[in-house]
Structure formats: structure tokens, C-alpha cells
């Protein structure tokens, strides 16, 4: 028994591991709750695009402010929000489908980001950290930022829950009830942008989409109401974060991919062994 305890406790004698643990749990929960809307509205491609689109913001932040994390957050968030509105403007202003507009902005922003990063001397290291996260370097002030903005994002979901539910389930009802449909859509995108930027440090831009869709999709296999789906997804995401960190510590794998692999394993296990009679849901 004491051996098990040693194995469980050992990583957290290091303060950076404890901070990493808190970060992955908080970020996992925020992404899981917003991920419920992502899978139900079929926005996976949009989520992936927003996460990649923050790269030029991060790179520009590096070039302007050096490594300081505070300003970096705002640069990244700005790039994501700009991309969200850019996608909306292109798909409305032309006859292109929304996913085409997403593809254009996604690739363009990502290329701009890589181009900017390549101006820096420590190109390879920085790109790796941005793409796959660097959760072991989370500082106390990073944790505060994750806590504050994660709470803000979840508070908006809580306050506008029933409106967002109607928008997601039946946009025609949302319109005939005269809800501010476009405002709610962009609000959801901004909340998604916040989640994606917070996840930048834990799993990196390339894998954020896994935190958005995988826990939510896993929970969708097991539940039949949206609040339960959100709760289940949050628990799965937090658990995947914790187990991923252990894997990373004992097997020396990069933590971001380790977390995503655990979340994926959860999904496959549930898919294969889910109780008889439960239904699949969403996209």
C-alpha cells in the first residue's frame, strides 16, 4: 500500500509537477464543457482552426515582448478572435461554405505563425513548445490566469446555458424566439478561443482539438442529457490530465501527447464496452 502511495506521490514532491497537475485539470474542465458545444454543433474543424490560428499571435508576442507570458496570452487570444470573425466575414461575404473559409484562415494564420517563429534563433525548441505544449513550465501566475479566464468562460456558459442549448439544438427556434443568434454564435467562438489559448501551455496548439472533442464525445456515448454530458466530459478530461502526467513522469513521454493518448484510450474503451442500449450522440 505504501508503495502505491510512493508511486502516486513521488512526482508531486516537485512544485512544477503540482502546478502542472492543477493546470491540466482546470484546462481539461474548461475545454470539456465547451467541447460539448463543439461536438453537438459540428464545430470540430472550427476548434482546430482556432487553435492553430493563435500561432501568429504567440509568435508576434514573443518577438515584441520576449518570453513574458502575460502579454502572450492577449496576443494569442487576439489572433484567435480575429480569425473567428475573419472566418465569419469571409463565409458571409462570399458564396463559400464556412468550412472552406475555415480552411483558408486556418492555413494562412498557421503559415504566418511559423514564418514569424522562424525569425527567432531558437526556432525548433519554441515551435515544439507551441505545438505540443510545455505544461511543466507552468508558473504560479500562469495558474492564476488559467483560473480566472477559465472561470469567466464557464460562467458565461452557465449564465447563457439555456440560450446556447437552444441555439445548438434548434437554430430555427432560437430565431423565432428572437434570441440574438449571431451574438450567441460569436460569444461561443470567443469562449472557445479562450479555452484554446489556455490549453496552449498544457497540450499545445496541435492537440487542443483532442481536449475539445475527445472527452465530450466519450461522455456523449454514456449520457442522455447535456448537463450530464458536460459533467462526465469534465471528469474524463481531468482524469486524462492526471493520468497523462503520471505517464509522462514515469515513461518520460512529452506530457501533452501523454494526456491526449489517455483521453483517446478512454474513448476507445467506452466505445467498445459501453453499456447496452446507450446511444451515440452528436456529430
Amino acid at each position, binding site marked *: 500500500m505504501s508503495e502505491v502511495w510512493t508511486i502516486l506521490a513521488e512526482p508531486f514532491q516537485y512544485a512544477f509537477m503540482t502546478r502542472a497537475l492543477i493546470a491540466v485539470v482546470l484546462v481539461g474542465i474548461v475545454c470539456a464543457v465547451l467541447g460539448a458545444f463543439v461536438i453537438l454543433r459540428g464545430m470540430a474543424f472550427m476548434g482546430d482552426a482556432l487553435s492553430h490560428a493563435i500561432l501568429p499571435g504567440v509568435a508576434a508576442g514573443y518577438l515584441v515582448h520576449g518570453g513574458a507570458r502575460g502579454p502572450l496570452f492577449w496576443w494569442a487570444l487576439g489572433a484567435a478572435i480575429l480569425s473567428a470573425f475573419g472566418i465569419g466575414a469571409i463565409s458571409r461575404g462570399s458564396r463559400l461554405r464556412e468550412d472552406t473559409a475555415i480552411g483558408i484562415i486556418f492555413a494562412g494564420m498557421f503559415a504566418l505563425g511559423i514564418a514569424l517563429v522562424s525569425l527567432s534563433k531558437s526556432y525548433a525548441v519554441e515551435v515544439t513548445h507551441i505545438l505540443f505544449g510545455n505544461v511543466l513550465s507552468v508558473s504560479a501566475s500562469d495558474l492564476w490566469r488559467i483560473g480566472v479566464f477559465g472561470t469567466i468562460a464557464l460562467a458565461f456558459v452557465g449564465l447563457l446555458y*439555456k440560450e446556447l442549448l437552444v441555439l445548438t439544438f*434548434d437554430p430555427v427556434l432560437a430565431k423565432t*424566439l*428572437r434570441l440574438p443568434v449571431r451574438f450567441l454564435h460569436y460569444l461561443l467562438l470567443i469562449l472557445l478561443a479562450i479555452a484554446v489559448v489556455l490549453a496552449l501551455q498544457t497540450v499545445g496548439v496541435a492537440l487542443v482539438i483532442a481536449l475539445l472533442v475527445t472527452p465530450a464525445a466519450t461522455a456523449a456515448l454514456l449520457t442522455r442529457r447535456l448537463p450530464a454530458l458536460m459533467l462526465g466530459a469534465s471528469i474524463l478530461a481531468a482524469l486524462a490530465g492526471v493520468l497523462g502526467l503520471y505517464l509522462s513522469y514515469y515513461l518520460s513521454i512529452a506530457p501533452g501527447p501523454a494526456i491526449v493518448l489517455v483521453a483517446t484510450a478512454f474513448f476507445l474503451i467506452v466505445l467498445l464496452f459501453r453499456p447496452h442500449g446507450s446511444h451515440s*450522440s452528436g456529430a
Partner: protein
Amino acid sequence: MTSGSEIEPFLFRHAQHEPDSDAVCIKDPTIRYGNRVAVNSITLTVPTGERLAIVGPNGAGKTTLFKAISGMIEPSEGKVSIFGFPPRRHACIAYLVQRRAIDWNFPVTVYDVVMMGRIRKIGFFRKSRAKDRKIVEDCLEMVGLTALARRQIGELSGGQQQRMFIARALAQEAEVMLLDEPLNGLDNRTQHELIHLLEELSDRNVTILVATHDLDLAAAHFDRILLLNHKLIACGPPSEVFRPALLTATFGHHARTIETQEGLIVVNNDACVPEPPNE
């Protein structure tokens, strides 16, 4: 998807209904998708409590007309008014989309869906009150779904799904209900149950517009029938509009009529692609 201006009122104020105004008043609206005119030359008033069937082939503009009446799109010319005001000033118009437009795996229960009709009345940032829950329960009772309230919506049969949306419209306190092909894919008995429910709603002064392919049901159960093919072909009681020339103008040669001693029989061969029954 839509032409015309987007309508996104933030501080929504519900229009007072003009006393003695007709529920729906349509004055020659023109609705275009790009350069193509989807609907024009329709002038029509629907008095409060009437049941009107809108009949026409696929692509005749039935859904477009519903979008204009519900205020989702605005006609570029002409006018649509509901109780004397533009549709966007009302939250009392319920638009029940075709069942196949809904994700039936969505993680909500029947109760949750009916409660959605209340959210405008509950208001932003608020939770449902006891009054709202009572209304939802009453609406479920009226359509006979009380026992199924906790079911996930995919577990319902086609007829039950349609009744759930009617309960939601009732919870919304809708005074105008637009039903897009509600009878599609339902068996005979279920169709008649649904029509009976619509008749009860008329008795409560709800104005009902139903888009349908089914000429026989329209003739048997609706006050008036509107024949639509991008424009109004005819509108009146079944006996007036079921004439060979008018039906040919509506359906082309897809509908044939046969004169018999008991009256006119309509043979509606392939005006629609039938959906498999969902019972």
C-alpha cells in the same frame, strides 16, 4: 442560406397585438435566393384560429413562405404582418421544422425540449420558475406525452416527436403555428391523431398553417387550402380549389384528377419522395 436582412434584436419588445387584426396578412412579398425568385405574387389573409393547408410540389416555396411568415427572412418587396406587426416583433410564432432537420441523438429529454419554448418568457440569466415547470407539464399532458417526459428524444416514434414539438409551441404560448410537412412518414392512424390535436388547437384560437403534400388529408381537415407553386395558384375551401385546371397548374402533370360520382379524386403520383415510415 437566407436573403434579406438578419434580424437580431437585443432588447426584444414584444408587439402588442392589434385588436381585430388578422393573424397572418401577406401582401405580395418577393423573396429571392440570388437571382432566382422563390416566392412572389401571394396575397392572403388568415383569420385568427383558421387551419390553412399549403399544398404544392417539392421546391414550390412552402418552406420559403414559412421563413418569411416566421420572420427568419425578410421579403425584398411586399409585406408580411402578424397581428398587424412585422413577424420579427413577435415571439408568438412557432415554426416546426421537418423532423429530418433535427438531430434526434441530441442529449436532451422530451421535457428539456418543451422547456425550450419557455426561455424567452423566463428571460436571460434566469432559471425556470415553478410556473414554467407547471406550464411545461400541462403542455406535455395536453399532447399525451407526460409518461415519456424523461425519455431521450430519439426514443420517441415519429408521431410522438411531432407532438413534442407541438407541446413546445404551446409552452412558447404560440398563437401562430407553422408546421412543415408534419404528416410525412407517419402511418394513417398517427396522421389522424395529429390532425385531431391540431383541431383542438384551433378551438383554442391558435392559427395553424400546415405545409403538406397530402391532398386528401388537406381536403378533409382544413378550412382552406392554398395551392402554391412559387406563386399563389388558388386559395379557398377544398371544394373550390380542387379543380383539374388548378391542380395541374400546381403540380404540372404529376397530379391527375378523376371525376367520379362521389366527387373529384386526386391521384398524386410522384409529387413527393415518400419517406420511410418512422413508427
